[in-house]
């Protein structure tokens, strides 16, 4: 490749660079991190409402080299109880679950209970653990896609190659 040709391709790379970064970070964060979180939540028995309420909140550019990807998990019960937070971080103690309407727990017209005592939930730390575990593979995958993108743009010539 001649220098002139290389420079022409380099201009195209420079123009598309931010677009590539934005696309790569968002798509990799979604496929690698968020989907893993959702799968783990499903395996752990989370309700679909919590799973749907867990999403990428945004990407901040901290510096030219550093990006921060935020994840947000939110689901409030009917009385304002933060279920997502309890599932992830706080957990709950054993507690009684009562129906909103009196004598709702009937069977064949026979009222059998005011409510049930249920055991508390253990905090799963799924989001925290997933981020800890996947941070490095995520970075590797980003670098790999960056290399592959550069190779495509420079016609098979890698700028950075191990």
């Amino acid at each position: 490749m001649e220098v002139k040709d290389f420079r022409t391709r380099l201009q195209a790379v420079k123009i598309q660079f931010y677009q590539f970064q934005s696309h790569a970070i968002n798509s990799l964060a979604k496929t690698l991190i968020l989907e893993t979180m959702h799968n783990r939540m499903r395996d752990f028995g989370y309700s679909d409402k919590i799973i749907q309420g867990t999403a990428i909140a945004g990407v901040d550019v901290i510096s030219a080299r550093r990006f921060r990807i935020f994840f947000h998990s939110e689901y409030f019960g009917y009385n304002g109880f933060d279920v997502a937070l309890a599932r992830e971080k706080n957990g709950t103690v054993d507690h009684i679950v009562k129906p909103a309407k009196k004598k709702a727990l009937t069977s064949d017209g026979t009222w059998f209970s005011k409510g049930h005592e249920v055991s508390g939930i253990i905090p799963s730390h799924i989001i925290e653990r997933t981020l800890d575990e996947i941070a490095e593979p995520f970075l590797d995958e980003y670098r790999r896609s960056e290399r592959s993108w550069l190779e495509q743009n420079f016609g098979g010539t890698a700028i950075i190659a191990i």
Partner: protein
Amino acid sequence: MPFDDFVDLNADLTISDLEKLDNLAQKAEKRLENLKKRGGIFSTSTSNITSGNKAPVDFVGTLPLGKQDKRIEKTIQRLTKKVEEDVVKNLGKDREGTLSKILGDDVGRTLFSIGKNPVGFFTNAIIGATGAGFAVQIAQFVINEIQRVDTFFKAFVDRIDNRTNQLKNKEIQARIAAGLTQEILTTESGNVSARDAYNTFNEFNSNRSKLEDDFAIRNTSGYE
């Protein structure tokens, strides 16, 4: 209060790196343009080699490569003849015998000695062959004549260097395979994390058979 968390991503490549690369490429482009103006090997595009029938030009930039080769060959022949004639004039009637005494039978070792110390080699060789007191002058004359055929002289000195490098390579290969020397392969920019780099010490500890295979002593010199 919902739960929030984040992960950081540290990218290797930034737009400023691309700018730097662009500046370097711009400088290279200007430099090439200047070289083209001067003539020589850069005076036409290298794409001629593959795209058309036009032959690549020579170092001077005026003749096709084949003709230039012949011209260099003729120059070398003429100078070699001159060297032989002049040396032989000073060395007596037994021309062939004297020259073979100077160069000796072991041509490889001879070339190696010439590459290391040309004047010393010829002086000793001529003293050995003739016992002449003017050996230094003759040696200097021979060296001057050889150095005039500059490309030839450089080529065989490079060849000798290359052969000694091959020996060094073999030694390094053996030392790496034995875990005595560390080689770390990283990116061109050098800023790859340690986890991505290829480290022979790590390979020695974790996967010795692979390391031995990677750095098995191979003859890469082109000579059997």
